[in-house]
């Protein structure tokens, strides 16, 4: 039965996230935008509170550490972990994207662990804060071109290489590293390894200075003969040229809607604040007259709201499909493509509409316009999402449609 409302049972959690955004994140938003590499100590307390919330929830709560594909059961529709996480994170990012990204134990590495780890690994890493290290100086979107190597040596692997753009790479307890076990076997040989903080041979070499999301640390990490036990390899050790990469990529089906949700959060913040400020000027976009009979300013607001609502629903749809065991690769990419570009457009448009007020640091609008850019880049750029969608629609391989 078609219903596109946020389910009642999730409203408690959504409200909780909204309270957090307003009372924890917003008051310190500007502070950590300015103090780029300082750790937001307020978040430890908040993480404890959030663990309490999650553990109290009957179905285990939300968060990237719990994302997984649901099982297909046509008799009963589920609104589960993926939807909960998406809705909760959108609210948190309405508070602050950077702070949401640096929430302990909510790293993308946690999503990878949740998706593919075995029971033994889950017991060791399940409660650790895990970052994800894919990008290298010579490869970004082309993650199949990873050069970092993992060479088997007895019961260990020895990792060598350099990773950049590792979100929470300095603060996390562990890093999930993508490395190839055999450069000659192409992308099928790419495996992911959990490397714990303090492992000899792993070193954080640099912290990036960025356009936005400054509260979140973005690290470069180098691996020099870094020895990791074989038991830290996530997924199957065997190199299967037919399946290979697919397993590693699967994580993205769950995490892309999550990034889309972040985009929706920051765009919502911008639109809400812009409407408030415009109202003080006597401009009330209240849907009374169609855009073509309204002022240009009102028409712009309607445009933003329509795009935002579309992005929001696409994101919930992708999460809903994951919860119900429906293959959602294309829908995950659609949500990420739409939400990423929409959030960037909206936050910039709000700055433009409000003039000096939007541009100066007295308001957070200029910050949101900086923060939002990353959401159209990481976890697959706009262009990568379009490639995925187009290949799927046109029935093309990555060799044909490059």
């Amino acid at each position, binding site marked *: *039965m*078609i219903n596109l409302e946020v389910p009642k049972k999730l409203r408690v959690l959504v409200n909780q996230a909204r309270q957090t955004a307003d009372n924890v994140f917003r008051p310190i938003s500007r502070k950590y935008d300015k103090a780029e590499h300082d750790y937001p*100590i307020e978040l430890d307390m908040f993480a404890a*509170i*959030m663990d309490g919330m999650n553990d109290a*929830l009957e179905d285990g709560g939300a968060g990237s550490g719990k994302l997984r594909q649901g099982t297909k059961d046509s008799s009963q529709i589920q609104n589960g972990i993926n939807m909960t996480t998406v809705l909760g994170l959108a609210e948190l990012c309405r508070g602050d994207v950077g702070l949401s990204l640096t929430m302990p134990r909510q790293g993308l590495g946690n999503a990878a662990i949740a998706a593919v780890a075995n029971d033994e690994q889950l017991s060791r890493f399940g409660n650790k804060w895990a970052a994800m290290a894919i990008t290298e100086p010579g490869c970004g979107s082309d993650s199949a071109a990873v050069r970092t190597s993992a060479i088997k040596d007895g019961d260990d692997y020895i990792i060598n290489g350099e990773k950049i753009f590792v979100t929470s790479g300095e603060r996390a307890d562990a890093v999930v590293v993508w490395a190839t076990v055999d450069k000659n076997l192409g992308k099928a040989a790419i495996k992911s390894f959990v490397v714990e903080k303090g492992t000899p041979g792993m070193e954080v070499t640099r912290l990036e200075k960025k356009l936005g999301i400054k509260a979140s640390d973005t690290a470069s990490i180098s691996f020099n003969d870094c020895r990791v036990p074989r038991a830290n390899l996530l997924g199957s050790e065997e190199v299967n040229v037919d399946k290979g990469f697919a397993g590693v990529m699967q994580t993205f089906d769950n995490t892309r809607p999550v990034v889309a949700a972040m985009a929706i959060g920051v765009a919502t913040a911008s639109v809400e604040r812009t409407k408030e400020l415009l109202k003080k000027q006597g401009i009330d976009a209240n*849907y009374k007259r169609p855009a073509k009979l309204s002022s240009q300013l009102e028409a712009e607001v309607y445009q933003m709201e*329509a*795009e935002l609502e579309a992005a929001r629903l696409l994101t919930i749809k992708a999460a809903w499909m994951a919860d119900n065991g429906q293959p959602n690769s294309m829908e995950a990419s659609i949500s990420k493509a739409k939400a990423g570009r929409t959030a960037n457009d909206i936050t910039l448009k709000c700055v433009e509409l409000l003039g000096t007020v939007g541009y100066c640091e007295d308001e957070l609008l200029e910050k949101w316009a900086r923060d939002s850019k990353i959401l159209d880049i990481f976890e697959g750029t706009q262009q990568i999402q379009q490639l995925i969608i*187009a290949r799927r629609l046109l029935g093309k391989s990555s060799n044909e449609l490059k």
Partner: protein
Amino acid sequence: MPTDIQGLGLGLASRFAANPLVRKYGLAKPAEKIAYAATKKGFQLVQKGMAKKNQNKQKDIKALPAPAALFDLSLTEEQQMIRDSVKSYAENNIRPLALAADENATLPESLLEDAQELGLNYFAIPENLGGAGQLSPMTSALVAEDLAWGDFSLAYAILSSSSVVNTISRWGNEQQQASWLPKFCEEHAYNAAIAVQEPQPLFNTELLSTKAKQNKKGFTISGTKSLVPLAGNAQLYLVAAQFKGKNQVFIVPADSKGLIFESSPAMGLRGAEVGTLKLDKVQLDKHALLGINQPQHKAFNYQTFIDSSHLNWCAMAIGCSQAALDYLIPYVNERYAFGEPISHRQSVAFMIANMKIEIESMRLLLWKAASRFERGEDFHRDAFLAHHLCMDKSMEIGTNAVQLLGGHGFTKEHPAERWYRDLRVLAIISGGLQL
């Protein structure tokens, strides 16, 4: 959302955590532990409280436990069946007529009579008057999308009468329903149309120049309406007019004296044979005002009437956009340039991807609005935003459909130029249809 007690607590906890003394004296860890335990307990209580509240409610009304209201995009079995049959009708019975109908700007002769087999009129008509008594905006939206996938302007023609049925079933009083609805259940097609649009730039549905006045016999109505479908073959019209300072709808038999239909072909919608309806002091009886003497909760709502029509146009725009995408995918795969299919070029492939993204966007906005309408919830904002988005995106898709076909798209060898023209009406029209 105002700060609640939990929000207040969170704010305090955060300020506590940032206090330098807390770090200095090693208070952070123990405090975090307390915070965890307290939150877990408190949160469980909140949940339990909610569960209890829900239980109580159910006991009070002694009803069967309602299915949990979850976010859900699955169609009911019935909706799926209707969709399948409408889609195949569109493919086999509508598509083949579209080209000639557009070229000649003529409604295909047997279209409306044949479309009777879809039974679209029966859904909404109350059971005691011979229908199924299932007025469902959500299902109507699905039907409209699939018909327009067949052809946009022929879908307008087919949906015209059922839109009148939907309107009278929703707002007509008992007398009006009894005198008009059974006519739509007869074997032969009974044709009807809704007339709202007026021929002036910046037309505003709120400021109608068509006016009605009360007199001894009932009402008189005068004005001019445009983009009215069915070539003057309609037997009944629903005409929007200003009456006593409010916007109302009047039931106007087509054989009324002073009513003239003049053909006036447009850039698109040609297969629906649109024209101008002129009403010159048309005398109507006392029962002509839609929903007259209805109790407050069943009273006619002009805003809803307009929103519902916009949603119907949105559904049709989505169907037409989907048709364009379905047509373009094989084309760009088969068309070779520079030694490979043009779909291997990102500039082409990304346009295809964007069409898909925006069609999905439009569809979800429409579904949200239509399902709220169906449940009797306020849906004005949703309809407003859906209409805004569909206007923008479907017209863009119409334009890009021609562009992707290149010079061929500009010719009548392909249907893209028709979609290009038909989809423009999204930015123009109000009324005409009703979910």
